[in-house]
């Protein structure tokens, strides 16, 4: 699957390998599946025996707005919200949202970001500019960046809607949990019919990232 086309499906910029990932912020656009990704992470941590807390936002923000969810694990977890500047990892399903929630990661934190761009209405109709060089900015500020063509991976796996799970595949390469634990958590949240495509997207992203990071 790892082809040598002009735009690789996954690129990794490493300054420092993240040690442990406990607090994760998931940034997405309403409807992209950010909440589902958060719930899969929570189930994974739960199954691994951790205390887990998540925070979601429902309602009006889900109508195409910017959606921010949090998931935390630990022996004891108090706040369901990761304090700003303290997240170990940011999982961004869209470029601009990755940039928006960048201040949530701690110095040296990891960013796993989709290369997908969804211009908000303020850009498509409001005359504002979609930021350029998002990847470079993330690279400068994050200790570790995985830049993922999540749509491309999901499309190849069979459905663009699996992009969120593809990103989890990339994130999984930075964490110690075994692939089987991820499969179990992903399967717990998907109807049987959607599992093969999602697990394939997960596998491809995980393997490509591992190949670049070094397992």
């Amino acid at each position, binding site marked *: 699957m790892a082809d040598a086309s002009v735009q690789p499906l996954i690129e990794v910029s490493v300054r420092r390998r993240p040690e442990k990932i406990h607090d994760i912020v998931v940034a997405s*656009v*309403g409807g992209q599946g950010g909440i*589902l990704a958060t*719930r899969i992470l*929570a*189930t994974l941590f*739960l199954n691994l025996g951790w*205390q*887990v*807390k*998540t*925070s*979601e*936002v*429902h*309602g*009006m*923000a*889900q*109508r*195409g*707005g*910017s959606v921010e969810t949090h998931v935390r694990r630990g022996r004891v*977890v*108090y*706040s*369901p*919200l990761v*304090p*700003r*500047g303290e997240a170990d990892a940011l999982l961004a399903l869209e470029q*601009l*949202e990755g*940039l*928006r*929630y*960048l*201040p949530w990661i701690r*110095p040296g934190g990891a960013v796993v970001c989709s290369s997908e761009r969804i*211009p*908000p*209405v*303020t*850009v*498509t*109709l*409001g005359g*504002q*500019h*979609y*930021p350029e060089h998002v990847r470079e*900015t993330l690279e400068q*500020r994050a200790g570790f960046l995985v830049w993922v063509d999540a749509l491309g991976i999901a499309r190849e796996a069979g459905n*663009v809607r699996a992009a969120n799970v593809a990103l989890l595949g990339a994130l999984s390469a930075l964490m110690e949990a075994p692939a089987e634990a991820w499969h179990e958590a992903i399967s*717990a*949240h*998907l*109807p049987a019919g959607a599992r093969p495509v999602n697990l394939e997207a997960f596998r491809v992203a995980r393997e490509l990232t591992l190949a670049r990071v070094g397992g």
Partner: protein
Amino acid sequence: MAQEAPTEEAVVLLSGNEAIARGAYEAGVTVAAGYPGTPSTEVIETLARYPDIWVQWSPNEKVALEMVIGASFAGARTLVAQKHVGLNVAADPFLTFCYMPTNGGTLIVSADDPGMHSSQNEQDNRQYGRMARTPVLIPADSQEAKSFTEAAYELSEQFQTPVILRSTTRVSHGRSLVRVGSRRQPRPPRFERRPQDLVMLPANARRRHPLVEQRLDALRVYAEDCPLNRVEPGSTELGFVTGGVAYQYVKEAFPEAPVLKLGLAYPIPSELIRRFAARVRYLFVVEEGDPFWEELILAAGVKVLGMGVAGPAVFPRVGELSVEKVRAAVRAFLGTGSTAFPLPGAHPGAGAALTTEASAGGAAPPPPAAGAPAAGQACTREDSATPEPGPGEELPGRPPVLCPGCPHRAVFYVLAKYHLTVTGDIGCYTLGYAPPFHSIDTCTCMGSSIGHALGLEKALGPDFARRLVGVIGDSTFVHSGITPLIDMVYNRGTGTVIILDNGTTAMTGHQGHPAAGWDARHHSAPRIDLEALCRACGVRDVQVVDAYDLRALEKAIKAATAREEPSVVIASRPCVLLPGVRKPPIRFLADRCIECGACFRLGCPALEKEGKRPRLNEVLCTGCLVCVQLCKPGALLAPEEE
């Protein structure tokens, strides 16, 4: 995605709302009702997945509570769930029900929304406990959401009072681990006639009111030893009284500090607080919403630092709290930005400030310590605890928008085209406020559109009504639009009401309602005919039009506003997010585009602006064909017939 409700003992990850439902199920609840509203909706949705409970969406919260009170009279354990502003709608039955004995335990779930993620205000419904003299419980996570719910039924039956469970967005929509167990067998229901207690005539209510006050006194005694309150010892001279999700923020920001956690938010345990206060040098009260505890604690004669009811304002009075805000506020008050936990004695400036405050009896805020921020500014200095500003500050915003294919879009296009004044209402369509329509001029609460329209007409004269419409969703109309429509007819208004009928309560995630045709369990249900209902209210001019048909909409709205009598236009199309509504995307033939920009006036996210031309986003387009009707040169086309 919906996980099956576990039936055996297990530890599971639940949202606060799911945990409330679980607690109610285990407590043996048999009747539950509510009206959807973020962040409360999943309580009823989850209960609808359990067997052996009557669960319903009611037309509104008042109706839901009245129904539940009836079930309580019969001895059933009952639950009613709503968002904070929903309890305003139900306040009428609630504030009299609290005079009456609850036979079956009754829990009133109020999900408050500090920070207004999806609400029009951030009222603090602990206040209703004080008004009604009923206990208020506030859980801090999902486990407490469940166990407090179970405790609430015992409390309700022991003290013969309804109990409020006040959740907030971060508890309702946070997930954490919950130990679940088995269901308690409900008692057999029985209705006993006791009209002297259940008929609130003045004579009976006068007899009941002293009992309510006695009950409150008994609850105050109970509060002192209530197992839902607890003292967590610590090693610092700073102490915190807190509860709800704010407790989590305090624990994370100051893990070494002693904490008095209030699970019973009302009435408060004054003696317990007094004893706790004596053990610490500075006592902070950290609460989300109003300075509710702060006022009660001060009234009990205990000096406490909070939002500045008496003395400096340490914590913000608006918005949500967070770990960062709590940490920054306390540090700012103590006059240090250092990361080490400051001992008060080590900072003479801070100590002096507190002494000044204490000795002045809170008459005036003290001057800030040298080099330290003024304590009163704490709420605006939250970023002192955050990393240097990221690029986020200049980024284009991403506000929520009407979905591609939303059936409200064409209506707002017409309203904007004719520059009509629009009184709006609560629902997805409030987004008609946003560009490019700028079409909502007022929005207050559920059902307000119609009353506001009549009021504008009465103040400005019937000519104004020729350029005025009220817009209201189908669910909102059934919730509280019917009576103002009758008001408009009865009081000789001549306004136009547009019912945006998408067949569901869309904003909260597509719940059924009386005009939708399905119930809380998604079973087919009797469907109220909106057209016939409007006619029965006395509106003679009722038109039903296809909400995707621009020409028909324009004609109907022009005719309706012109008529000098009340008129209703029902713009009908199912919400595009409902299963089976989406259609294949349209086509865009770029060589036909004359760059007129007409399509952009729809503000559809599927038509992205590329220079002066649209770029069709085929993933987003739902094939509603509204833009096709606007494209004169035929560059935007319906998909080819197979």
